[in-house]
């Protein structure tokens, strides 16, 4: 039992911090928000090709670095801190996690090396509603229906979608530019991550990815890990809300004093710190479980805990950041609003806090 980070882990975290402080500052985030696809291609290229983040959690056999959830969690924490706009989340945290957890050997060999090399973007649905049907068509499959809440789908993405087939639910890979695929993306209040509805009209693909033997354990494991990575991002974002606030109140003067000298303000910041550090313990602990021999039922509870807590803490901290910035806090010019919108949107991703706690209660009671 060891709860400390290894030197490699610390190096990965620090490198991510340095890169993002440079390439994902407030200006870069706002530029990315204004693009059609929601990210700047050169930042994505650097992440994939230069930094090798996409390879971190891919097995060495598929061209990856063979590290695990702790490393990815650390990167995600930094991504959240800097509100990184990038298909990294969908490609690596959702897509590669799915393939790792429940993919066939063939699908892993076909897709993971390109993911690890930063050459392939995966777009994955985050909805728990299944409105896709898959029918056998010779060697291929024909898909019809809607893929809902598909994350970061762009023209050259590979879509990874669950669909109902005659023999049960399967996972299918479809190039987004296949005939019959229509992406409709809508920019939400949170413009830092894009979601699309994908219409599939007799779309033919050869690639069914799920390994039936892995589905029962792998499905829940992939969901648990995806929740963990969102939680890590929320943790980073919450920390940023506190840091922005502390920096602001240390400068802003009213009544002839910096407002950070008012005890009520100090206590509110301390309360944020309590929640954030508690959350950090929770997220790191869940990641440590994911890196250990915890059975999937335990991992489920741990990651549900982390994501529920992270959603609540980030929402609280983003709200406090606006409030303690005073008038400028609710303007678009300052950054707290960006985190507030992310806080709101991410609250529902893969389960609201209430839904996640009900999952936990279902096991306890």
């Amino acid at each position, binding site marked *: 039992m060891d709860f400390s980070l290894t030197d490699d882990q610390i190096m990965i975290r620090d490198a991510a911090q340095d890169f993002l402080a440079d390439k994902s500052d407030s200006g870069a985030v706002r530029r990315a928000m204004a693009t059609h696809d929601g990210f700047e291609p050169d930042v994505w290229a650097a992440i994939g090709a230069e930094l090798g983040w996409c390879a971190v959690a891919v097995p060495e056999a598929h061209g990856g670095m063979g590290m695990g959830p702790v490393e990815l969690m650390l990167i995600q924490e930094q991504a959240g801190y800097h509100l990184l706009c990038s298909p990294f989340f969908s490609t690596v945290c959702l897509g590669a996690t799915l393939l790792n957890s429940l993919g066939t050997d063939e699908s892993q060999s076909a897709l993971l090396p390109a993911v690890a090399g930063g050459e392939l973007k995966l777009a994955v649905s985050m909805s728990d509603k299944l409105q896709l049907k898959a029918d056998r068509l010779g060697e291929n499959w024909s898909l019809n229906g809607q893929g809902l809440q598909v994350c970061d789908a762009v023209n050259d993405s590979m879509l990874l979608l669950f669909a109902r087939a005659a023999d049960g639910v399967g996972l299918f890979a479809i190039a987004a530019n296949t005939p019959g695929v229509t992406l409709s993306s809508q*920019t939400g*209040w949170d413009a830092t991550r894009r979601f699309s509805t994908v219409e599939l009209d007799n779309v033919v693909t050869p690639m069914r990815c799920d390994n039936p033997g892995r589905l029962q354990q792998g499905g829940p494991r992939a969901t648990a890990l995806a929740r963990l990575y969102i939680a890590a991002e929320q943790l980073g974002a919450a920390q940023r809300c506190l840091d922005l606030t502390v920096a602001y109140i240390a400068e802003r003067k009213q009544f002839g004093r910096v407002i950070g000298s*008012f005890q009520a*303000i100090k206590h509110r910041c301390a309360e944020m710190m309590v929640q954030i550090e508690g959350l950090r313990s929770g997220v790191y602990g869940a990641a440590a479980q994911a890196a250990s021999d915890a059975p999937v039922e335990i991992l489920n509870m741990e990651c549900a805990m982390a994501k529920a807590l992270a959603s609540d803490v980030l929402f609280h901290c983003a*709200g406090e950041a*606006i409030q303690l910035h005073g008038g400028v806090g609710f*303007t678009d010019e300052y950054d707290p609003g960006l985190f507030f919108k992310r806080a709101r949107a991410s609250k529902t991703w893969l389960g609201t806090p*209430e839904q996640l706690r009900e999952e936990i209660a279902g096991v306890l009671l």
Partner: protein
Amino acid sequence: MNLNESPEDKAFREEVATWMAEHLVGEYEVLKHRGGPGDEEAYPELRKQWEKELAAGGWTCVGWPKEYGGRELSIEHQVIYHEEYARAGGPGRVGHIGEGLIGPALIAFGNDAQKAEFLPGIVKGETYWCQGYSEPSAGSDLANIQTKCWVGDDGDWRVSGQKVWTSLAMDSDWIFVIARCEQGTKGRHGLAFLLMPLDQPGVTIKPIHQISGSAEFNEVFFDEAVAKAGHIVGEPGDGWKVAMGLLEAERGVSTLGQQMHFAHELDLIIKAAKANGQDRNPLIRDRIAKAWSGLRVLRYNALRMLSGGADVALGREALIYKYYWSNWHRDLGELAMDVLGEQGDVPAEDFDILRLQQVFFFSRADTIYAGTNEIQLNIMAERGLGLPREPRG
């Protein structure tokens, strides 16, 4: 202590409701429930036309004395008027600042010439006003005014400096400003209260985009802008007194109308919950009942304030009101989005849903403008509970 309405009150309520039902129709139909906080940019021209419609019916400035063109309604009838106006979905009042703030201030502190020049335009719904108090360094510390004014060679005033958080500046004709007329003074002393047209060289308006995407607040820059010699209210040095008198007037009967808008928002939440099944979620049910309860508290609290007579500002019920409603409203916004779930993520085309999204975002400003939560708590602790004052730095 009795909440039964007299037959006369009931008749008056009926009169307002009938007028609204007959006039908020046709081209005005689209204005129903529009133009509220966070939605100020909706139909500005049509809403100005609606102001004239109201004026024609005698429904502007209903609390003003008759000699200035008002109806001189009793407090109870003003409450009824505001409630029925809001219940009918009456749109956000573009003329609110003229009718509710500067008009009463001129009646109290203005000279006859000023009254004659400005009050009729307000009553007729023809002249629109905005307010220039806050400054970048004078937020919570409201008296820390840096904008300065002086008398030019032509005898008129000149004003230089910057105001901020000025709402509706884009739709307004005039602004009232407090500025420092005695250089070297600090705080509440040495201020003047000036009336200035916005359409002049030397005045620049810059909208402030909010997190909700709307931009009802503005920065207003003054660079030797002019206020006529006759357009100072009170004497030079009286500025603080006039400004504060006007803020007092702000906490008035219109709050009962505001509560009707809140009730409408709660209705929209209930409607959304019924539509998407969240009405069966016990945690949501609990919060909806809490929101309803809070709205009852707001109503009774306002009635307490209004029954308190002239010394209302001394009562604890008045001290808590702004804090209570703004935090209640912010919670309502959170409830709305929790009910909407993923439906809330994208700006909605259905205005009933978009309105809830607006409430969520705009209500973050409620606990900040016009006295932040933190300032309100200071005031309550010090004035309400007699605890020691916070020292200045």
